[in-house]
């Protein structure tokens, strides 16, 4: 990228199982207010807003319609993304690179507590070939988990280690919903939802929002002392029908990562990236996404999960924040990974800070079995 795009402020609400005390716009306002106060930017300075919300979760068509007054879109420009919020960050980046928008506000919110998760997810499946079977994201994920475990010998214990580590890391994150001290045995003894996925292999229902302000390189340098730059970003989509893919592999993530790495000059992710924030709604996804991200060869994700490399203090700590497993809502989860990456690069990650982090990776995905994958590389130099 010739002209860089800077992120100058980020904020998240605390993630919570049921924010019945606020409406969606009040929830969004909590995050947006923070980024405006930090930067001194007023809503009237915002050239464009990119919002991220999903109609079925919000229970209305055109889900962004009720939040225009809190995103600066009242009599202003607004675009809505209904995939994961990391794609809203990408859209904002593209707007700024177009030269037509200077200051862009990005917002994502979801209140999963407001509806029936399995019904919303079931509606994502093709109506004729799959929806009538009663599949939801968890049962589809279980098909993927089983296939992955079978093909590469990944064990339930290795998946459980992911559930344990992420919830333990979340103890250093004051915004995390369910930080926990649990053991592999706790995970393996928790209730089976859809075998092989157990209760502690997945995340709880979650409500939350996040916001950020992005701008051009020159404006970013004037507006903040510690801007964070997008060094590379890419996404990749693959087929919807589950039988068309070998679910044990994640080709879309491999392609997205390669392109983002190439933009950012990353040839050896384990050595060149200081911290990674990865979206894993189900524990088996972490080793599988490791393979897609090129952190290890195909089938070796289980070994990497066991190693010190990805733990706090390792070469490439993964999810110091705890990631998605302790509770992040659909749609917000991947954008929250970008927010966490920014906090790390600004040295503002508190007890979960990776000292001296200069390059960070954020990952998000949308849809059934990681159909749509997005990777972003960020840096502070």
């Amino acid at each position, binding site marked *: 990228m010739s002209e860089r795009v800077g992120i100058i402020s980020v904020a998240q609400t605390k993630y919570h199982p049921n924010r019945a005390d606020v409406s969606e716009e009040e929830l969004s306002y909590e995050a947006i207010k923070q980024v405006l106060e930090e930067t001194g930017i007023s809503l009237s300075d915002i050239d464009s807003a990119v919002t991220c919300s999903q109609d079925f979760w919000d229970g209305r068509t055109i889900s962004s319609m009720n939040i225009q007054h809190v995103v600066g879109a009242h009599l202003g420009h607004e675009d809505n993304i209904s995939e994961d919020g990391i794609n809203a960050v990408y859209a904002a980046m593209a707007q700024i690179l177009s030269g037509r928008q200077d200051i862009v506000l990005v917002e994502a919110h979801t209140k999963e507590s407001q509806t029936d998760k399995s019904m919303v997810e079931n509606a994502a499946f093709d109506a*004729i070939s799959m929806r009538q079977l009663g599949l939801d994201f968890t049962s589809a994920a279980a098909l993927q988990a089983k296939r992955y475990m079978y093909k590469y010998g990944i064990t339930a214990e290795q998946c459980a280690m992911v559930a344990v580590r992420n919830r333990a890391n979340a103890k250093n994150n004051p915004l995390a919903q369910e930080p926990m001290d649990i053991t592999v045995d706790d995970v393996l003894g928790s209730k089976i939802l859809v075998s092989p996925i157990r209760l502690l292999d997945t995340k709880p229902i979650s409500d939350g929002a996040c916001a950020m302000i992005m701008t051009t390189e020159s404006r970013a340098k004037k507006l903040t002392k510690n801007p964070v730059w997008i060094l590379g970003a890419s996404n990749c989509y693959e087929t919807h029908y*589950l039988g068309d893919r070998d679910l044990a592999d994640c080709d879309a993530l491999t392609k997205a990562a390669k392109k983002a790495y190439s933009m950012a000059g990353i040839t050896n992710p384990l050595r060149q990236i200081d911290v990674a924030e990865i979206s894993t709604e189900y524990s088996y996804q972490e080793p599988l996404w490791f393979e897609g991200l090129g952190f290890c060869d195909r089938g070796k994700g289980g070994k990497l999960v066991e190693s010190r490399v990805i733990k706090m203090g390792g070469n490439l700590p993964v999810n110091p924040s705890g990631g998605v497993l302790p509770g992040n809502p659909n749609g917000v989860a991947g954008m929250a990974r970008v927010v966490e990456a920014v906090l790390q690069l600004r040295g503002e990650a508190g007890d979960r800070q990776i000292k001296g982090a200069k390059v960070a990776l954020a990952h998000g995905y949308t849809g059934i079995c990681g159909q749509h994958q997005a990777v972003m590389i960020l840096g502070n130099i």
Partner: protein
Amino acid sequence: MATVTEKLEGMDVWLYHGQIYIPNTFSAGAVGSRFLIELRDKKRIMGMRCPTCNRVYVPARSICKDCFEQLDEWVEVSDKGTVLTYATDYETKSIQPTGSPIVYGIIQLDGADTGFVHMLGEVDPEQLRVGMRVQAVFQKEREGSILDIKYFKPLA
């Protein structure tokens, strides 16, 4: 549609219980329609072959994802196949077509190059394994739906 309001206990907040009911009429399209009609009338599972990559897609569909070719070579595949993966859903959900637990499976039917997403039945969850051979069991009354196949049962 419920239109109840209620006060949350201990909170001065009101909740509105709404439900959106929107009917949809989905077209299976020309290829999908024939696939469903073959299931209903002849208990045949039909695929479509790509003339460029030779892949046989099941369920039959009209466009190859890799070659972008419009497909028109119908192929009948076997009602028998091999389980590629499976998952047993122990939760009870309103979306489910039958009582729980439901065993889902992706089955590579003989003659197909893709997996077929469906359910497994007449099987003890303990006996499930990747690679097991299964055969389609059809409903007696069929209406032109993916559920005209009741499930796939293990081959003796």
